[in-house]
């Protein structure tokens, strides 16, 4: 029955190609615009670590100036990072199953002079848990282990581009690399990796690409590595050496993540943080009201306003655009179906039920919806590909399964919504009058 109706629909659509083109264009345009903008928004708003994002938590503590809150719209806003000294204390906790402190720096890479000249590169300082916590993909080797953290061992993880540049893309595990004044052994090479949002560090450049080089964070004091990212402070220190800088407990430049798989652990960790701050208050620090935030990945992405409000506005507008296209479709379908009244009347007179007539017409609308929707998707692929090129920093925008499914769903809904009234009109038309007119 359905197949028969689809055949009739195809026949009817072929009969009036001009009208069909208009119908398809209306749906295709609507789907193209709405898919493009919702995908664009979704690329930034989606869960970058599916299945795990609710267990990975970002830690913030309000160690700001007692005289005034950290600048921001919210009176409860607090520094986005923590200090090196606090991080050292937090690392002692055994509650998290995994934990890592992070910061970004720029260091000099001195490759084999035959291969390349010395150059500066973005380096991520991390603990071993970073790679497992954030599902960082490897093509050769792996991250280092906790033993390497503790010592620290001179090990390094490099990304695919660096591996291609310095080692011609071969398995370079075991090779060495000179960074600043030390020699590091390569233990892992990342697979090509470019998430839309650099979800493990949302401070300044949340849509930047991941770094090229990864080093054990415990080299920070040994190599006097300074943060290349934002650092916030309010207290005035007289700093004469790097050691004194690391001890400055109210200069915030470290990102801190913990993995807490169960609600019990989450509660225990929140208590641990609150107790730590209460204890520090006794030493004259953390003079502001107790204001700590331990937020899971998606909450953190929300707090850092990664999704530009303009993108959300455009997504909303694009859905309205689809609504206008559907309204248009109602008019066009109404005209098309009513022009067919004599033919339908004959069918009805010969015994077709209202239900059958309705089904025939709604199937025709859905056929239009699906073909138009597919065209719209193709168009949208093209537009997004173009947008990826013109976006700054070549931010990748992937169309994922959810987006394809929602586009298919939207086209079906648009086809149905636009078709239901015209189909109902034609099936409730009394056949006798039309027959008399012929």
């Amino acid at each position, binding site marked *: 029955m359905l197949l028969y109706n689809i055949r009739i629909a195809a026949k009817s659509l072929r009969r009036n190609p001009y009208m069909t083109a208009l119908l398809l264009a209306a749906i295709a345009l609507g789907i193209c615009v709405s898919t493009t903008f919702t995908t664009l928004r979704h690329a930034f708003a989606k869960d970058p670590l599916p299945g795990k994002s609710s267990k990975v938590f970002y830690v913030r503590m309000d160690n700001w100036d007692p005289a005034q809150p950290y600048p921001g719209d919210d009176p409860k806003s607090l520094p986005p990072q923590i200090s090196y000294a606090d991080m050292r204390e937090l690392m002692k906790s055994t509650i998290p199953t995994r934990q890592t402190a992070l910061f970004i720096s*720029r260091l000099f890479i001195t490759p084999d002079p035959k291969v390349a000249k010395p150059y500066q590169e973005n380096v991520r300082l991390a603990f071993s848990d970073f790679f497992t916590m954030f599902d960082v993909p490897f093509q050769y080797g792996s991250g280092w282990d906790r033993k390497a953290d503790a010592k620290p061992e001179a090990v390094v993880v490099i990304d695919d581009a660096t591996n291609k540049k310095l080692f011609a893309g071969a398995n370079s595990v075991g090779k060495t690399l000179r960074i600043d004044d030390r020699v590091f052994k390569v233990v892992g090479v990342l697979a090509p990796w470019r998430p839309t949002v650099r979800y493990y560090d949302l401070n300044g450049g949340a849509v930047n690409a991941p770094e090229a080089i990864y080093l054990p964070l415990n080299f920070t004091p040994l190599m006097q590595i300074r943060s290349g990212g934002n650092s916030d402070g309010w207290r005035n220190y007289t700093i004469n050496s790097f050691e004194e800088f690391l001890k400055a407990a109210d200069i915030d430049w470290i990102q801190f993540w913990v993995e807490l798989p169960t609600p019990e652990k989450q509660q225990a960790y929140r208590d641990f943080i609150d107790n730590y701050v209460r204890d520090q208050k006794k030493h004259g620090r953390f003079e502001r009201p107790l204001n700590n935030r331990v937020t899971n990945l998606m909450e953190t992405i929300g707090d850092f306003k990664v999704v530009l409000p303009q993108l959300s506005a*455009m997504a909303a507008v694009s859905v309205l655009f689809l609504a206008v296209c559907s309204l*248009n479709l109602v008019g066009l379908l109404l005209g098309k179906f009513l022009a067919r009244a004599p033919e339908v009347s004959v069918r009805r007179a010969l015994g077709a039920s209202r239900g059958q007539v309705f089904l025939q017409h709604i199937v025709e609308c859905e056929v239009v919806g699906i073909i138009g929707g597919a065209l719209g998707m193709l168009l949208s692929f093209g537009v997004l590909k173009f947008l990826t090129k013109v976006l700054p920093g070549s931010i990748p925008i992937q169309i994922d399964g959810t987006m394809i499914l929602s586009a298919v769903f939207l086209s079906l809904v648009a086809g149905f919504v636009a078709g239901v009234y015209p189909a109902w009109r034609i099936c409730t038309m009394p056949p006798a009058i039309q027959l008399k007119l012929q």
Partner: protein
Amino acid sequence: MPIGPIFRAMTHNRTRVLLIILEIAFTLAIVTNCVNMIVDERSKMMKQSGFDDDNLLFLRSAPFAPEFREQQYILNHVDSDLRVLRAIPGVKSAVNTNFIPWQGGGSSTTVKIAGSKDVPVRSQVYYNKGDLFGTLGTKLIEGRDFVPNDFDYDQVNGNPKVVIVSKKLAELLFKTPHVIGRQIDDGQAVYTIVGVLDPFYNPYGWPIHEYVFFGPSTVGSFARGTRFLIRVEPGAMKSTIAAIESAMTKSNSGRVLTMTPIDEIKSNFFSGGRLVMKAMTAVIALLVFVTALGIIGITSLSVSERTKQIGTRRALGATRRNILTHFILENWMVTTAGLVLGIAATYGLNFLLVTHVSGVKMDWRYVAVGMVLLWVNGLIATIPPAMRGASVSPAVATRSV
């Protein structure tokens, strides 16, 4: 004008009328809100920094040669670099500073009037050595620029004694731009104001875009390198970049040089906004087109449905002109109803966007312009089908009744 009969005729075609009304209302709401967003983005982009952005060049020198590990060596090298830079033909002036316009950030601290109990206010803060005013192209409206004496202090561990503030910061702190000789305190030290500059605008993550003070200091370290802003002769950017590269390398090759025109940094800063503007413009154009098609489609339908009535009216003496007027008037009434509903939809959508997403309040002028645009659009879209209606021959009425 036969408003009554037209209105009664419309009540027989409620669906069609409702469709057009809704379509017009939605269209007005979307178009005006898009225009509102475009204008908002545009106004951000039109904001002037007060600098000669087109001819400014940012130079970063990242040293790797071991002698640069000595801080004093870096500081001394800055002076020779400035001399080298100034001697290059095409270079108007140069300054060693950690201030880079249009990055969307920089460095900041809090300051208050020295000796006061005021809550410190946040301000941008940068240091410089060399010709800051000549390079940026901004003006010293009061006081003086830094003189060599101002640099006579321990630049590695000490604090300068004088600063130059922006007019906006002076007004924020002292409620007056005449602040020469007054003192400010950033918690580290007390500084005497020797100069006031204006204009200054550098978009920052916090609303402190126009507040800044500059201190006299050579800026550079082994870890972060040294940075320069260079103003070149108009149109000489490309050739000057090549000349700088070779002259600076000749003076010391133990470093990596990167140069970025401020134009490029500015264009990067606004690329998101430009994209929003282009996308919104495309949506408006497509939408107006789609709505026009919709009106043509529905009016054509209503014309072909009423072929017999038109024939009858023509047979009873109505002129082509009467028929044309009928359709145009009918559509005008429907469009107007749609626009009235559209005003409500516009403000409704604007309210939702402002409260849930972000954005600025609707300017009524855009609504007015949008209404005129859609009126004209509706009129143009009605004419082809209405003409077809008017050309129906009276003989049609007598056929096959």
